[in-house]
Structures are given as structure tokens and as C-alpha cells.
């Protein structure tokens, strides 16, 4: 989509971004800082959209403004809403200032080595980008170049990104979920009761509205994953929206209600199975006689004739990414909201 060069709008957005960043740093109440941080992410999302990077804007809106705000709020809910840092002495402040200045100087000293912004002669723009743009249709039958670069030309990077999400989930799990054995021996009846037992004082309106919205959210997320070849979107964005729908379920009803549908064990199995699907597609390529993640050789076992194999390979990989991201988000939220106890949420 060609964006009109309305530079006043860009200037306004940049000013707002800097303003929100400063406000969220200087606010003493952490809950307010979290909200301002969400607004900051949303402004960044608008800037990405204005630059034509719609895929990035999509991710920023879903992750930055949406789910990460929920994560921060649930973390604050379980800790404390006011900052309690003790200001250090003068030496400490001087030391911090020195470190920051030195790091900044080093970063700035590397700046002249970068190519000019938008320089058509720079290596990235002169060699790689034209190849992707010219050949994505003939190679992979994927009109959205971002998707073909993400999942095909640079499939290794995306595999490792998915693994990073997986590792983050495992890390939060292993830090917070430490009371499994204890709670099972202490009060076994509480653990067995997985039927909806939400607080009746909770709002009926919120529950009904969520019940209405969640199917549409999930339908849209499936569309985003499946249509990522043609329009902005893909596994990460769709997975985050799917995860957000389940988080909404957990917030508007109860954690137990969610865990009654997706048990803890199945959640973790699914988180792992997404990465496994991605890696297995790569291994299947090796077994069929090609390189790792070289989808062309999958042609005999995938539907569609001829060179559609790469397109279908991308779809398989995106589904893997979607599954991992979705259930990672849910698992992280459950852990953060209940402080690893899995008994009650926000």
C-alpha cells in the first residue's frame, strides 16, 4: 500500500513517541507507566505502518500494545505498584553516567560505517533485496515478500526466533512454577476441581461480551496465519492473536476455567510441538534428499503440482510458529498472573 508522504503526521508521531517514552520513565506509579508504555507501543505501530512495514506494525500492535501490557500489568499485580528504588550515592551516579556515556560514544562511533538511510547502492539494497523482490513469485509463489523472506529465504532465522519464544516460555515456567508438588499434596481437592468456578461477583456483562468476541478473534487469527502469503501477517501475529483470545478468556472468566479446557500438560506439549513441527519440516527436507528447510524437495508429499511446494512448506512452518507463539503466550500469562500457583488470575 503506497503511503502518502504526510510528513507533519510523522513529526507528530515521533514527538509523541519521545514524549510517551519520557513519561513512562518518569512516572512513579508503575501501573500508570505500564499503560503509557502501551500507548508508546501503539504510536510505534503507527510509525511502522506509515513507513510501509505493515507486518512489523501488526506485530507491534499485537505484542507491544496488547499482550506485553497484560504481562506487565499482571507482574505489577503480583509485586508492587510503587517504585521502591533507593537512590545511590554520588559515586554510584557518576559511575552509571560514565558507563552510559561510554556505551553511547562507542555506538555513535560505529554510525559512520552504516550506509546512508535509503541508499540504493548499499549492499542490502543493491544485491539481496532486488533478488527477493524479483524472484519471490517464481521461486515460492508468495506475493508477500516479507513472508517469503521470513519463512523461506531466511527460514533458519525464524526457526531460531521460534526457539527463542519457546525458551522464554520455559524460563518463565522454571522460575515461577515451583510449587507444583507442594500444592498437590496440600490440598488435592482444589486441584481436581477444574469446572468453571468463577467468582459470581465478577461481571456478567464482561463474560458475555468476551464470549461473543473470542470466536471472531480466533477466526481472524486463523485467517492471519493462513493468509500470510498474500497479506500482512503470519505465524507470529496470528499466534499472538490466538494467545490473546485465550488470555481474554482467562481474564474474563477465571484461570481455572481456561485450565479446564487446556490442561497444564497439554499447554506445554503444544508449546514444544510447534517448534517440533518447524524442525520436523526441515528434517523431512533432509530425508527427501535436499538441504535443511529446502522445501522444494517436499513436492511429492505435498498437494498442488509443480513448484507450489515452497508455498506449502511456508504454510506448514507458519502453523508451527503460530502454535508455539499462541501457547507460549498463554503459559507465560498463566504463570505471571497467578505467580506460578495456577489458582487465580487477575
Amino acid at each position, binding site marked *: 500500500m503506497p503511503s502518502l508522504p504526510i510528513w507533519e503526521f510523522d513529526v507528530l508521531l515521533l514527538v509523541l513517541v519521545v514524549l510517551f517514552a519520557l513519561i513512562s520513565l518518569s512516572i512513579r506509579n508503575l501501573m500508570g507507566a505500564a499503560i503509557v508504555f502501551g500507548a508508546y507501543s501503539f504510536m510505534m505501530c503507527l510509525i511502522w505502518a506509515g513507513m510501509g512495514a505493515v507486518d512489523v506494525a501488526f506485530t507491534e500492535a499485537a505484542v507491544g500494545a496488547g499482550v506485553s501490557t497484560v504481562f506487565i500489568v499482571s507482574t505489577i499485580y503480583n509485586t508492587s505498584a510503587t517504585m521502591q528504588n533507593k537512590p545511590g550515592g554520588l559515586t554510584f551516579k557518576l559511575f552509571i553516567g560514565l558507563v552510559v556515556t561510554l556505551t553511547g560514544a562507542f555506538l555513535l562511533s560505529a554510525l559512520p560505517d552504516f550506509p546512508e538511510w535509503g541508499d540504493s547502492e548499499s549492499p542490502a539494497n543493491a544485491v539481496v533485496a532486488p533478488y527477493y523482490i524479483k524472484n519471490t513469485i517464481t521461486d515460492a509463489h508468495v506475493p508477500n515478500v516479507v513472508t517469503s523472506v521470513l519463512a523461506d529465504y531466511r527460514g533458519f532465522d525464524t526457526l531460531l526466533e521460534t526457539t527463542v519464544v519457546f525458551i522464554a516460555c520455559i524460563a518463565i515456567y522454571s522460575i515461577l512454577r515451583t510449587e507444583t508438588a507442594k500444592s498437590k499434596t496440600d490440598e488435592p481437592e482444589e486441584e481436581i476441581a477444574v469446572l468453571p468456578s468463577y467468582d459470581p461477583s465478577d*461481571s456478567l*456483562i*464482561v463474560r458475555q*461480551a*468476551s464470549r*461473543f*468476541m473470542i470466536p*471472531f478473534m480466533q477466526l481472524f487469527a486463523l485467517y492471519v496465519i493462513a493468509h500470510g502469503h498474500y497479506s500482512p501477517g503470519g505465524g507470529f501475529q496470528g499466534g499472538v492473536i490466538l494467545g490473546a483470545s485465550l488470555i481474554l478468556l482467562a481474564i474474563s472468566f477465571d484461570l481455572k476455567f481456561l485450565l479446564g479446557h487446556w490442561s497444564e500438560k497439554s499447554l506445554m506439549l503444544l508449546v514444544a510441538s510447534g517448534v517440533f513441527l518447524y524442525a520436523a519440516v526441515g528434517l523431512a527436507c533432509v530425508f527427501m534428499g535436499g538441504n535443511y528447510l529446502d522445501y522444494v524437495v517436499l513436492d511429492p508429499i505435498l498437494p498442488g503440482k509443480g513448484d507450489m511446494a515452497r508455498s506449502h512448506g511456508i504454510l506448514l512452518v507458519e502453523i508451527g510458529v503460530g502454535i508455539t507463539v499462541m501457547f507460549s503466550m498463554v503459559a507465560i500469562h498463566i504463570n505471571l498472573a497467578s505467580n506460578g500457583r495456577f489458582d487465580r488470575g487477575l
Partner: protein
Amino acid sequence: MEILAYILISTGLIFFLGTTIGLLRFPDFYSRMHAAGKGDTLSTVVILLGCICIVSTQGGMNWLLGLKILLIINFIFIGSPTATHAMMDAGKKAGAEPWRKDSK
């Protein structure tokens, strides 16, 4: 049709102005949320209706775009008041005092 669209969008902007004034001027949490929730929803809906008027008369497959905006209106119409309600509820649980005539 275009004139209708401009009328609708201007109406929406006027309602937004009212929302902002209400949000800044009302004395307590509940009346502020009242201004924000109602005005915000109505003005967004009216502005989007104006957008439909502009978009759907441009011919071709653009009526489909209008239909999508209609769906967005539907979700805003349900989601925004629900969010306001949830915030009111949270405010009540957190113990926000409603404003009375005799309170300072």
C-alpha cells in the same frame, strides 16, 4: 453522499470534543468514565459511518470495504462499553468514592 459523510464525520468530531471536555472537567472517576465511555463509542461509530459513506460510493469492490467497516463498528459497539463497564467495576472494587454535592 459525500456531503452526508462530511456531516457525519464533523458530528463525530464534535462528540469527541464533548468527550474530552467531560473527561477533563467532571469531578470524579465515575462521571469521567461516563463521559469517556458514551462519547467515545458514539463518536467512533459516527465517524466510521461517515467513512462507509465515502468508501462505498467509489464503485468496484469497495462496498466490501464498507462491509468490513460495518463489522468494525459492530465490535466497537460491543467492546467499548464493555471495557468502560469493566473499568467502572474495577474502580468500585478499588473503592473510588462517587462525587456528591456536599463533598468539598
